[in-house]
Structure formats: C-alpha cells, structure tokens
C-alpha cells in the first residue's frame, strides 16, 4: 500500500508535465485551429517539421542565436563564478560580505534586470555610453546594431546569473574533504597543480550539474530578449522560445510552434543525456 503515497505526486506530474508534452507532440503533426468551443486538428504529417528544418529561415536564425547565447553565458558565467568561488573560499571575511552582495542580482526578477540593463544600454541617456563619451570614445548602439544586440543580452545575463554559478560552486568547494589537499601540500604541489589535479576533479560533479542547469536554462531564454530587444533589430537577437512564442500566440500557428518545441526538447534531452553521462562516468571512476 506504500505506493498510494506516490499517487498525488504522480497525478500532478502526469497532468502538468506528461499531458502538455503529449499534446504538443500530437499538435506538431497537425494543423491546429481554435474554433468556437473546440480545438480543431487536421493531420498534416511531417509538414510542420519540414517547414522548420527546410523552409523557415527564422528557425535556423533563432537556433543559431540560442546556441550563441548558451555558449556565451555558460562559458563566461562558469569562468567568473568559478574564479570568484575559488577566491572567496580562501577568505572568510570576503565570504561574509561578497556572498550577500552577490545575492542581490539573483533575487531580482529577470524583467527588472532587463529593464535596468535597457536603461544602462540606452544610446542617448545610458550610463555606459556616457562613460564612453567622457573617455572620448564614440557611443555604441548596444541593442540596436544587428551585430551587437545578442552580445549585449549575453552580458546582461552574465551579470545576472554568474552569482548563481558562484554560490553553487562555493558550496561545492566548502564541502570538499580536506585530506587530499593536505596530502598535496606534503607532496609539495604548486597551487596550480593543486587546482588542476585535486580541486577540479573533486569539484567536477558539482561543476557539471551547474553546467547542465545553465545550459538548459540558457536555451530557454525569453524574458530578457522579450524586454530588451524584442528579438530585433529584425531577427538579429530572436531566440528559439521567442520564435515559438510568436508563432503560437501572435501568428496562432499552434501546430508549427509545437513542432519547434518538440525539436527543441529533443536537442535539450540529448544535451542532458551527455551531461549526465559525464557526471555518472566520473563518479564511477
């Protein structure tokens, strides 16, 4: 009878996760129309998938932008977060002040962060361009130049979420056993050798979890882009979720939006599997 205790959780999981996923998959093979009192489906085979992969230029643009965003935020947030964590874990007093300071961006809602950065990036009145001007440099169109808009959003995200990586890695560092480090000291290891051969391998399970979280979360970026650039100028900063959202709720092509969601889900599952393999692989060594 113990399994009865699982029922509530399973019911919630099934209705909130499995049902939407299954209906997305169903929608993706159909043309979906909202008719009075009904959701009308007419099967069209693989048309939606074909459209995404072979006809819709914006799909690939969005995929490229999303990959760029993920690569940018994962690399820089990990480097910055890890660097900070390493420094802070050595200094107890820094830890007290810096940790609470770095929590501030984390507790702010993403929309507020985006609006703040929108103001900072403003061409005429923004602080960043003001600083450039007072240094005698020419101001930059941070969000309205097609080749810069995506980078600018990446920078805002790095500012927002590096502290997240920092906090988790800091916790990871503090939980490491002390003996291997003592052994390394006795053997006369240099700080770099200690970092490369002791810290990094011991920290890697935590590091991989952080990478996994940031990759999946980064791939779903929507709020910052919606607020800061609207995907523009043109399509130069459109993300996958932004494209899916527009196709679903502005263009009203729910079938096509579902097909793109399914494609994205497949890519993310693949990435997750690779990460998890890496984590488990390390642990079994």
């Amino acid at each position, binding site marked *: 009878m113990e399994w009865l205790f699982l029922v509530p959780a399973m019911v919630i999981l099934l209705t909130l996760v499995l049902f939407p996923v299954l209906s997305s998959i169903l929608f993706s093979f159909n043309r979906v129309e909202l008719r009075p009192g*009904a*959701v009308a489906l007419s099967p069209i085979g693989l048309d939606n998938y074909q459209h995404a992969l072979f006809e819709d230029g914006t799909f690939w643009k969005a995929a490229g932008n999303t990959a760029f965003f993920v690569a940018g935020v994962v690399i820089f947030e990990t480097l910055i977060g890890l660097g900070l964590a390493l420094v802070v874990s050595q200094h107890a007093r820094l830890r007290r002040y810096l940790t609470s300071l770095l929590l501030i961006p984390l507790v702010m809602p993403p929309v507020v962060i985006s609006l703040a950065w929108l103001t900072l990036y403003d061409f005429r009145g923004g602080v960043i361009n003001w600083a450039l001007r007072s240094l005698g440099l020419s101001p930059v169109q941070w969000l*309205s130049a*097609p080749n810069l808009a995506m980078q600018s959003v990446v920078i805002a995200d790095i500012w927002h979420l590096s502290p997240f990586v920092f906090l988790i890695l800091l916790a990871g560092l503090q939980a490491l056993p002390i003996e291997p480090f003592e052994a390394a000291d006795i053997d006369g290891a240099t700080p770099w050798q200690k970092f490369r051969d002791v810290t990094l391998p011991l920290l890697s399970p935590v590091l991989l979890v952080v990478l996994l979280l940031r990759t999946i979360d980064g791939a779903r970026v929507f709020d910052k882009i919606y607020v800061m*650039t609207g995907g*523009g100028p*043109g399509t130069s900063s459109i993300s996958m979720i932004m494209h899916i959202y527009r196709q679903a709720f*502005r263009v*009203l092509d729910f079938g096509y939006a579902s097909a793109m969601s399914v494609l994205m889900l497949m890519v993310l599952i693949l990435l997750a599997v690779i990460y998890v393999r890496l984590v488990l692989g390390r642990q079994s060594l």
Partner: protein
Amino acid sequence: MAGLALSAACAPTPAPPAAPAATAAPPATAVPAAPVAPAAAAAAAAKPAAGALPDLKGKEITISYPRGEPQQLEEISKAFEAQTGLKFNRVVLPYGELYDKLLINLSQSTGAYDMTVVDDPWCPQFFSKGYVQELDPFFEKAGLKGLDSDFVPRTVDLSKWPAGTGKIMGIDFLGNVQLYAYRKDLLEKYGMQPPKTWDEVFQFASMVKQKESEMYGYAMRGKAVNPAVSAFMPIFWGHGAEMFDDNYNPLFNSEKSLAALEFWVKLAKETAPPGVATFDSIEVTRSLFSGESAQSMVWPAWAGVLDDPSQSKTVGKWGLGVAPAQPGGKGGSMMGNWLLAIPQGAKNADAAFQFMLFASGPEGQRIHAMQGIPPTRSSVFQDPDILAKRPYFKSIHENLQVARYRPRITNWGAVENAFGTQISSALSGENSPKDALNTVQRDVVELMKKEGYLK
C-alpha cells in the same frame, strides 16, 4: 492601441464628475444634433441610447478591457451603473494579456465575459471565426437600423465583417488614429510650408538634422513586428503601395513597396535618432517631448501630451496634419480603433448590448472625449466644449475621415509578423530593403496559401 497607455497625466484636470447626471442631465440638450440633415433616422437611432435608458436593476455583466491611462470604459460604466442599476464586474488586463485571455475564452465560448473590448487588428480573426456574436439581431430587437450616420463612415466599415459590407459584429467606439505631427516653429524658422508629401517631410527632416544642433528630423518606431508596421504603413500607403491586390495576391516586393521601404530606410539613416530600429512608443515619445526630434506620426494619446507642460519641453510648438502622401499615392494614416463586442456564449448578452449602445452613444463617447479618449461620432468631435479642452481632436477627426485600416484578413497576425520582422531588419541595416521585401513576399505567399486565400 498601445499608445493610449502613454497619456498618463495628460489631463491633470479631473475627469468629468463621477455623477454623470450633473454633466449630462437632460439628455435632449446634452446630445448635439447629428450633423447630417435628414435627421429623422439618425435621431430615432440616437434616442433610445440617450433618452430612455432601460431599468437593469438586479442584473449583472462582466466586461473586459485593457489597462490604460486614462482608463477606457471605467467612467462610462460607472455612469451607466448610476442611471440603470446594472452591476459591472470589470476585468482590466494589460494589452498583451487581454489578447491571450480573449483568445482562449472567446474561441472556447467559455462565457467568461458578457462584453469585451477588441483591438482592431484582432477583429478579422474574432469576427470571421465566430468568436463574437453578430449584432444585427440585437439592433433589430432594439428597433434600430444599425449604426447611425453620426459615426465617421470608416468606423462603421470597421464594425462589419467583411469590412464595409457585411454584418455588424462589433461597435467601433474609440477612434484612435495616427496623426502627422511636425514642429511648426522650425518650419517657420526655415520659411517652409507644412509638408504635404513624403519628399517634403524628408527635406524638412534633413534641414533640421543639418542646421539644428543635437536634433533629429524624424522619429519612428522601428522595433520588430507591430511597432515597425504601424510606423511604416503611412509611408507605405503614401507611396501608392498596397499589400494585396483584390484577389489577395501579395504585392510586398512591387516597385512601389520597394520605393516606400527604401525611402523609410533613407529617412531613418539620414535624419532619425540613432537606434530607431529598436524604438517603440517610449523612445519615440521621449524623443518628441524632449525636443530632440522634429516630426513623427503620433497617436492621439501622445498628441495630448505634446502640449502638456508637465511632460513636454515643446509646448505650443507643434502642428498636426493629415498623413503626407507622394503625388499619386493615396496616403492615409493608420487606424488603431477599439471595438465593443459580445463574445459567443455570453450569459447576459441583452444587458451587455444596452451598455454598448450607451458607451458608443453620444453620452458615453462624450465622457471618454473629456478624458482625452477619441470618439468615433462626428457630433462629439465637433462639440465646442470638447474642442475647447482638446483642440487636437480636430486633427483626429480629419485624419479619421481619410484614414485606412490594416488589411482585413483572418491571418493578419501572421502577415504582420513576417512583414514587421523584415522591415525592422532593413531599418537596422541587417538586410537590404530588396532582400527584406523578397523574403516577406515569399513568406506571405505561403501564409496566404495556408489560410486558403490562394491556391
């Protein structure tokens, strides 16, 4: 339209007294006679709305409308409540959320709302797919012959499906339309006449850019999709371009379309503030109110603020006119009207219809007009009290009579998405105008086939 949200404190003087009986006591005098001479029919149509308001005590309706400043329908519904006893549940939502909620509730006939406000780009979808109820039977039951002649004709067209000829599906009660705004002080300074063509707009714009320090010639919303399309339409139409021929064949890469887009990009590159490709209402209004830009197409809510000293540094310096047009182009500013409609499955449709008559009637629209929300009735536009308080209403009336509406196609959202992404991209220099329009043409042909307009 989104622009309405901006008129925040445009009317520091309070809205008309909440007890409407004081302002509109004897309906006979409060309602100026309809301007059209054979008033028999018009007067008969206006009368039931203004004169004999029904007793609706004990009844209750739920209405939904977008959040805004000033708040549309709030004062009107209070006035109606006071006079008839009808109780209101008001669902006030931000613009984007309202659309999402309506989409679900109306398409699934949930009966959540008895009456709703609908933005005009949503109409083709809501009207054609039966999301809202046909209103002709309601008019018949009330002994009325449809929308009377006091309504500006284009707003009657918009209320019907198919537009202009079909059945009445909504009542256009809010005549939001673009106006052409220009700095008349600078025109005088350079001895120029108010521009009538887009070439003259460009000349004035370059003059300002070259001669004035820290000033730009023309501000526009270039942010992808809806803002870009709204800003571009007067220029597009003004160059004689059309989106579709009579058989719904897309004409996006025609010579005239290309000329229009090339003009827009040139106007932006040479005379507009940097970064217009991501400008939306906030950036454009800031540029106008701060005295940075000399011209733009503006919405009525912004026009109200141009001369408001608490928000604008340019009080008294603006002229308003109808949208310019190139020789041979039809011109026309774009309408962004709001309509009242009864959702399919509404539980109290009859009471809701009584309220719609009142809200779109002279008395209701007058309440809105005093708050700075544009009406759709000529009699209200011409009301001396209102003109004295809001002189720019004259320009709204002029523009509304020659304004154009977006194509009435059921997949407008999809077409706007394709068009608005590409023109924004051309504006930013990411794409050439020619490539951008070829892409739009290809995409829209596909969309029109998908929707069954083309084979």
